[in-house]
């Protein structure tokens, strides 16, 4: 089970654009749709998700290859990953609270939500299935987080314009038109997929 032969830079760019965790793999869609109503909250959640995914993928890689695999308890890996994510989120919350109260005020409500954000667990499971090495796992984690952040910022900006548009049919208002917008964004992002492949 060797690590795939992928360059660090191309892995980073691919995880932001062509294999965007949200637009190509549908992960983290729930909070994506509900939070993107508001530009400021999107910014906060985007930063929080990027940090949590990056740190969690590093921690989970260590846990996976130094605890789970040697002990042969792969069947428990889902539960262990969830506990690690919850722990990391809790720690991050305490650290931010201690060192930067203003950032804590901005991110406070979003941090607990991240524990059940599918994007975090998704990145970790992808990392496990593709046998990334440590560096690749960290790069993939931060890249995916950045990709999620980029797409929520784009969508939040588009939704600001959409809110003032009266030409949208009544049945499509709100979530419907948002989903269609996400579809178009996905087409744009996936359009590059011939250039870089990471699987």
């Amino acid at each position: 089970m060797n690590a795939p032969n992928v360059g660090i830079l191309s892995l980073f760019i691919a995880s932001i654009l062509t294999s965007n965790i949200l637009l190509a793999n549908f992960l983290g869609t729930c909070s994506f749709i509900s939070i993107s109503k508001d530009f400021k909250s999107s910014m906060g959640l985007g930063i929080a998700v990027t940090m949590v995914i990056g740190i969690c993928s590093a921690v989970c890689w260590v846990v996976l290859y130094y605890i789970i695999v040697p002990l042969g308890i792969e069947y428990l890996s889902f539960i262990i990953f969830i506990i690690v994510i919850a722990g990391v989120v809790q720690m991050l919350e305490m650290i931010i609270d201690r060192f930067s109260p203003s950032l804590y005020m901005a991110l406070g409500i979003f941090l607990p939500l991240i524990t059940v954000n599918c994007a975090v667990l998704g990145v970790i499971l992808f990392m496990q299935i593709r046998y990334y090495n440590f560096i690749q796992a960290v790069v993939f984690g931060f890249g995916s987080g950045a990709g999620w952040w980029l797409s929520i910022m784009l969508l939040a900006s588009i939704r600001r314009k959409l809110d003032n548009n009266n030409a949208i049919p009544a049945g499509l208002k709100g979530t419907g038109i948002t989903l269609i917008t996400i579809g178009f964004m996905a087409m744009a992002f996936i359009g590059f997929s011939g250039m870089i492949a990471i699987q």
Partner: protein
Amino acid sequence: MTALRKVMKDGLWTNTPIFVQVLGICSTLAVTNNLRNTMIMVLGVTFATAMGSWTLSLLKDLIPRKVRMIVQVLVLSFYVIIIDILLRAYQPAISKQLGPYVGLIITNCILMGRAEAFAAANKPGLSFADGLANGLGYGWVLVCIAFIRELLGFGTIFGFKVMGGNFTPWTIMVMAPSAFFLVASALWVANVYKARAEAKKKAAPPNQGSAAPAAQK
């Protein structure tokens, strides 16, 4: 019995997770380009939601408020692990195709949503029915989407070729964007239908109301 019927109707139609709450599109939408995989995922989600709601409803008085979230996640991941192990043992090929998405059922918002919104305040039996109805209500929408995607994307249904020889597959249907478009269209149809039903309802009572006093006179 009426409570049970109301719960079933809510989950399957009036309050369908996908249309009304827009929850849980995350993990399952990714496998909707294949009808068979979708069925398996839907069954998995339904099983985990129903059993998870039942268990959490049994435990609701024992769990301290502070650690409720993490207990919920642990109980749900227990059921998801069962699904994963069963799939690996009996359907290794499908398990491989689904990849990480089986594990991601844990973070599907429907599971936590039902545990929090319904099972935390209701009896075990009713919570089980609620989980079942919500899982299936979510499932039938996804199966419809998967049917369209597989038919147009590969020209097959359950892997059997149904389109004629000169049918050109729509590559877009296999890729992610089409799923978003199809969910949006389904949402549109449902919204229009609901708006019409509501307009009818609104139009009906005033007529009866004005008719009744007239009759009394």
